[in-house]
């Protein structure tokens, strides 16, 4: 019996030591990346970077644990002693907020590449293209009462979209639209991928979501399709930034350049993580955002959105 207990203790100690082993790798040949892009796509890109440069990428991925973007908060909390070298974001608002907070280096702090877009998604079994709504205004029609799915407008790219719409339409029109949309009893979910899933399941025939989430839903066999891009669409690029005081600045620069390379962007387009290589290649005029003004109005708009949709 003593032997079995000793064995048990030894197993526990070994497990403990293994669990506690330091993950500080060879500092000279590694770079730490905080990545908000889909791990399924980002992982192979990091491995290819390591293969090409010999620099190991130690990545921390985001999780929609409770709501999006724990990494942004982490970057802010760690900014006095940054652990991260490179931040790979999948939308622009969060990156600009971090830049405004001084998280990135002063010059050439961050860049944008590729794009995906906000789209209306439909369930093709329940709705034909001819009958689908063609504009955001139509979503406030009584015909769509209780039939429109979207993520909470206070979070993620949906929030960015609503902020951009306010800037494009002006306060009065935007508020009227938001209130009309809220009054039309939309189904609010806690993520864009959930919106696609619910539309695909038939819980709602129409949804507002991101193009890459629609692509994932289609790859999974859901009967969904996106409506064509219109002037109400918002293009959402991926972003990459080097943190101020990055522990591995040279390796960070190499990863920063690599992620913005055509090779990487094409790869992301080929797996539908992005729609296109560059926003300026889009023929359809889409929403143009004055980001400085948007950031100034961020708190006020967020408060109004909470007041309209969190009632």
């Amino acid at each position, binding site marked *: 019996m003593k032997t079995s207990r000793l064995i048990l203790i030894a197993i526990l100690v070994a497990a403990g030591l293994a669990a506690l082993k330091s993950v500080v790798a060879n500092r000279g040949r590694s770079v730490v990346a905080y990545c908000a892009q889909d791990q399924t796509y980002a992982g192979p890109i990091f491995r290819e970077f390591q293969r090409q440069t010999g620099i190991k990428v130690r990545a921390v991925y985001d999780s929609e644990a409770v709501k999006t973007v724990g990494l942004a908060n982490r970057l802010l909390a760690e900014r006095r002693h940054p652990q991260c070298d490179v931040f790979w974001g999948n939308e622009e608002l969060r990156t600009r907020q971090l830049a405004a907070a001084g998280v990135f280096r002063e010059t050439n702090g961050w860049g944008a590449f590729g794009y995906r877009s906000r789209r209306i998604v439909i369930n093709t079994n329940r709705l034909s293209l001819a009958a689908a709504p063609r504009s955001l205004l139509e979503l406030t029609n009584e015909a769509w009462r209780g039939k429109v799915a979207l993520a909470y407008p206070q*979070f993620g790219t949906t929030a960015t979209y609503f902020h951009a719409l306010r800037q494009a339409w002006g306060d009065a029109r935007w508020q009227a639209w938001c209130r009309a949309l809220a009054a039309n009893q939309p189904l609010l979910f806690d993520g864009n991928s959930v919106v696609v899933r619910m539309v695909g399941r038939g819980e709602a025939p129409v949804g507002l979501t991101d193009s890459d989430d629609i692509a994932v839903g289609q790859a999974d066999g859901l009967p969904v399709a996106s409506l064509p891009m219109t002037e109400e669409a918002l293009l959402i690029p991926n972003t990459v930034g080097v943190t101020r005081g990055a522990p591995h600045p040279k390796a960070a620069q190499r990863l920063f350049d690599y992620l913005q390379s055509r090779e990487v962007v094409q790869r992301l387009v080929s797996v539908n993580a992005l729609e296109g290589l560059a926003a300026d290649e889009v023929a359809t005029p889409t929403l143009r955002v004055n980001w400085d003004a948007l950031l100034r109005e961020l708190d006020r708009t967020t408060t109004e959105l909470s007041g309209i949709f969190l009632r």
Partner: protein
Amino acid sequence: MNWLLLKNSLLVGVLTTLLAASFGFLAALWLAGLGSRWRTRLLAVAVIALALPPFVVTNCWLHFLGFAGVWRGWLPLNIVSLGGTIWILSLLTWPITLLFVLGAWQRLEPAQLESDMAVSGWWLIRGLLWPLGRTALAQAAVLTFVLALNNFAVPAILQVKVFPAEIWVRFNTTFDTAGALGLSWPLVAAPLLLLLWFARRDFPWPRTEGPLPAGLFRQQLGPGWFWFCGAGTIVLCLLAVGLPVYQLVSVSRTWAELPGALAAGQTALWNSFSLAAVSAGVVITLGLAAEVRSLPPRGNSPGSAGHPLGSFNSFLRWLAWLPFLLPGVLLGIALILLFNRPWCMLLYQSAAIVVLAFACRYLAFGWNSAAHALQTVDRDLVDVARLEGATRWQMLRYVQWPQIAPQAAAAWYVVFLLCLWDVESIILVVPPGGETLALRVFNLLHYGHNAQVNALCLMLLVLAVAPLAVWKAWRVARGAEFRTPHSAVRTASAFTLLLASAVALILSGCTPRAPSDQTPLSSQFFARVQIIGSRGVGVGQFNKPRSVAVDAQDNLYVVDMTGRVQKFSSNGVFELSWQMPETELGKAKGMGRDRDGNVLVLEPHYQRVNVFSPQGRLVAQWGKHGTNAGEFSWPRAVAVNSRREVLVSEYGLVERVQRFDARGEKLLAVLGQSGNGPGEFNRPEGLCVDAQDRLYVADSCNHRIQVFASDGQFLRAYGRPGQRQGDLSYPYDLCVDAAGRQYVCEFGNSRIQVFDPNGGCLEIIGGPGAAPGQFNNPWGVALDSAGNLYVADSQNHRVQKLFRK
């Protein structure tokens, strides 16, 4: 402060607590009357209910009772509601009450029941069980209330707006951590007050055996109550565990994704297990150490202080609940502020920070369980040991630990489960390479990779029960359960068989699961039949499949009324699918394969031919609406000959077959017209070209097959309307094997008829029905290189594969 949201949260919290407490109490009544073996098993089921991830349970119930739920037709309940939220949260949390109340009733002595045998049934519950268990019930209610109050994910999916949403807006959108903390006060204050109210009570932990024989309890409770509670508990287990687990394991793609998820997540798998195990060990050790340290050299046993403020240790123990009640991400922020400093890098950059986060969050469980466990130690033994001069360590090692080990192990297991699923506490501090399965699950969930998520959830469930299996194996090895060598062998054999079955089950699921239902077939050409797919709109499911095609690698392609093309491997495993460009006017029907390996798909409503690569990329699209030669009017079938020429049949305004060059740019010939004479057609629904470039046309409404030479010259026709051998009823498609045999798919007779090269009937396969080998309006057929036959069994919403002998 949004008072409406707070009201919703409180409503959800209170009603969930009431319902979960009722369920748990009911289950406790039944389990208390069960023998040790069955009680252990049902406790394991309860643990699984606790360990199931909320989104798995929610998605399961949405599948059944959502807006498009499969049960909505006969059970008009809408799960997307406040009631649905309360229902699901109750299904997740009822085991808490069960464990607490069952633990409290373990202190029942036989004398209490035997003193008055007339106290039974309702009077037993009211007079004895309720007073004994109400404190435990209240404590379980507090815990359930806290968990329900803080839950955001389940209400969000079910359209119930709750208070945590406002906290996350502050934290996440405007990065206002202080504001988020400030807003959190109701979520912290309410449970803390309740804890303060019950602080002087102890926390009972369940044991599989107490001094009261189960038979006596059962007898006093009465058969009516016992079986009523039993029926209720069984239904509860089925709803809380059976349905979600079935949903998880019944999706074939879950198993298909499992090997890949396992390979990709090995590090995460190890991190999950080791971090949870180590953290649970640290929590229990710290709790024991704190209580042992507080042992007075002589006098009272630990925890005997009355009011919490009268004992500093008790106060700290009560305060330890704070990190558990706060949102986990706020704990993460605090750890960053404290430990993200140059002199702490060894800690901060390692997995130790994760262990620290877990330890802070769950210390209260370990500490309180240690305190309770030490209170149950035999006082006489403690006193004797003190008199002998035992040190604190010796007291723990030789006197207390042998008595409290089971309770400590149970507490360790609860903390282990909590750590296994925790994401909030560690998302801000996990070091690179320290990703756990739970973090990976939520990352994949965010991006919609549901099949991989399901596979990872299975892995997590296995991890959750792994300690139980290890504990069981250790007990068997120790011989703790043996009374006789024979029982030892029996126990070991049963356990080995159970473990082997579990491993076999998991391993069998780990291989890409081929379609089920391989059934022998009575046929001179085919040995057995296999069912591919089922009715539905999900991956690998069909809604009236009408056409099938096979490529050069024997991959199967299927189009159905969902407007998708689905691709399966040669053993029937789903590979990918893609949506047709347009489906507004109608769905695709008619498939073929060209000499380059591309898949041709017709769109009758769009009058065109689509050419897809095997990966689903549209490489060409041609065709124009019209009745003139070279135009299309309701194209129905397509075939390609050895010269790469494309043949397309049409019906409706025109009845003909047209022959084009490979790209559809040049019309080469037009064949046939409307009629029932030789070379005339009445709905040519299917086409096939044999090895000699002879064209076979399924002339469906003429109930015959017509055969043409490669230059279009009419050769022969066979078939007549009817059901006898050699008769045909609406032949919708056919294919020809290397020997010239024709396999004709009869929509009207719901069968496959096999003809020799001269048109003589060789065999009839199947008939109307839903069993394997039977058909319901089959619409299309295709042969692979091995001579296996695929049948689009449209009204059975499946594809059947007939394996060549």
